[in-house]
């Protein structure tokens, strides 16, 4: 007996059924304690949005690769060090600067297509931030040159501060008998002559 539902509607109903099953299974596991976490968790579980635990078996890997729209052979999760990644895929560490500027991306400013798996550090690799484009000289060389120069200048300034070098000087000589009157000398007395020179 043929129903009146179209193919798309049948697909949606199927998805809803699968989603409901997942939601029920998730509720029965009973991980969350408060209502908001419960709701967001079940919404995420129903639409396949959660990053699940690290995949151990081949079936889990295949399911995770399918979830993230990656080929099974290309899918590589982060190593299981308890860092909180789960089964999120490890993509190449290249920034969006390196992507083709002339291709018709769905989101041209982000140089990304709709549905493409996002790098974990995507917000770092946008075009306003970190750029991993190749540098004219190797990165290590650039670092060494810059830090070497800055370190050298700091060292020299510090040495110069600790050990200053001046021209040799003597005490300053003043006229008018070493400023006898300005220094509060008695104007009625004649001061002794001060000779600041030698011939």
């Amino acid at each position, binding site marked *: 007996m043929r129903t009146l539902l179209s193919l798309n509607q049948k697909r949606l109903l199927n998805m809803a059924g699968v989603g409901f099953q997942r939601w029920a299974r998730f509720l029965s596991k009973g*991980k969350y304690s408060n209502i908001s976490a419960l709701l967001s968790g079940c919404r*995420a579980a129903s*639409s*396949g*949005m*959660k*990053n699940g*635990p*690290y995949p151990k078996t081949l079936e889990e890997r295949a399911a995770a690769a399918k*979830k*993230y*729209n*990656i*080929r099974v*052979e*290309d899918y590589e999760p982060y190593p299981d*060090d*308890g*860092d*909180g*990644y*789960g089964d*999120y895929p490890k993509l190449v560490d*290249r920034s969006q600067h*390196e992507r*083709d500027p002339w291709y018709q991306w*769905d989101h041209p400013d982000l140089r990304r*297509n*709709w*549905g*493409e*798996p*996002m790098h*974990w550090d*995507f917000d770092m690799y946008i075009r306003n931030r970190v750029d991993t*484009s*190749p*540098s*004219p000289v190797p990165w290590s060389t650039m670092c060494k040159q810059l830090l070497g120069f800055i370190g050298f200048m700091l060292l020299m300034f510090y040495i110069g501060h600790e050990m200053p070098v001046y021209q040799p000087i003597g005490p300053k000589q003043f006229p008018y008998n070493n400023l006898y009157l300005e220094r509060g000398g008695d104007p009625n007395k004649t001061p002794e002559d001060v000779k600041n020179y030698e011939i």
Partner: protein
Amino acid sequence: MADYREAPLATRPKTLDPNEYFNLSAEKRRTEEERAALRASLKRQYQLQLNNPHRKELIEDPAMNRWVYARANPYPHFRPTFKTSLMGLLSGVVPLFVLYYAFKTDRDNREEKIKNGTLERKFCLSS
């Protein structure tokens, strides 16, 4: 085009990589075709939604939702190992004690100098 050299600060585009066109094994071609098929199906889904005249709402991107969810919820997958405990200690516990001791000794020395009257009150801003 054989002597193409990419711009000094740019990566070579994939379409100009000679490995794309020469010495292709059947396996490489199949992998590229599979990847292209995935991309094409995503493109098709997006274009169908984008050009749908009856669409009234925003197009939701499941990849972005997964990314946001994964970034916001690392705790279910957190496990205390040696490395993670060390990172936690180094970034949370050690700075507390180090900063406490650094500031305390500095302020105590300063207070002692003020009490003895030996504090040099300079006009220089840098020290």
